[in-house]
């Protein structure tokens, strides 16, 4: 599944579209501790988190995930939003809990 496909499903709100929505999403990863996400999030995965600061965007870029999903209605703060736009990171959002959001992505990937 491509990032664009996930956007088109309209399961999540689009916070930042990002500059490469043709990227593949090959898995889902959940964690809020940044060093754990940094060390364990697979490249090309969708990262579901409730941590919405600028460092989330830095980790997303450096660990090379396909997109970030903010769960539990958590908002990305203003600085982080600007950084996401700058770095071209796709950020989506939902009111749902982390597990439910991740499960939906998993189901979309595995049909």
């Amino acid at each position, binding site marked *: 599944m491509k990032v664009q496909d996930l956007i088109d499903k309209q399961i999540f709100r689009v916070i930042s579209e990002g500059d490469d929505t043709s990227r593949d999403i090959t898995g889902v990863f959940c964690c809020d501790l940044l060093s754990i996400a940094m060390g364990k999030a697979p*490249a090309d995965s969708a990262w579901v988190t409730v*941590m919405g*600061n600028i*460092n989330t965007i*830095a980790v997303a870029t*450096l660990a*090379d995930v396909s997109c970030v999903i903010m769960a539990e209605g958590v908002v990305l703060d203003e*600085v982080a939003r600007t950084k996401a736009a700058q770095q071209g990171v796709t950020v989506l959002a939902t009111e749902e809990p982390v597990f439910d959001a991740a499960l939906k992505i998993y189901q979309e990937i595995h049909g």
Partner: protein
Amino acid sequence: MAEAIRLTYEISPDDFTRAGEASSDVKKKLRSLGVSPDAIRKVAIAMYEGEINMVIHAEGGIITVDISPDKIVMILADKGPGIPDIEQAMQAGWSTAPNEIRSLGFGAGMGLPNMKKYTDEMTIDTVIGKGTTITMVVKI
């Protein structure tokens, strides 16, 4: 890329809010040099952890990145408090990060283990009260 390239970054103590700009810049440069995505990811992860550590634990410092055809060498030098027990610091989960840092998602105690995991060589030179220099090598 026949010649070696040297990049130098001054990491200021408020780099925290600038969130790994040096690491992001290195990532961009490596990409434009055509380095493999796998090697870039390793360098980016290891350097970001080191960069954040310099900010959280040592009030900033200097990062030098040497890019040559077969390897990338990162040298992170700070004038912070030093690391009293390297073996303990290297343990997954060990952290002295204060609570306000933890509330930002840091302080999982996985930084040094990540740096080790994602590099081919890593050495830590530290002197209490003088500072820490960490050298990491990623082969390409």
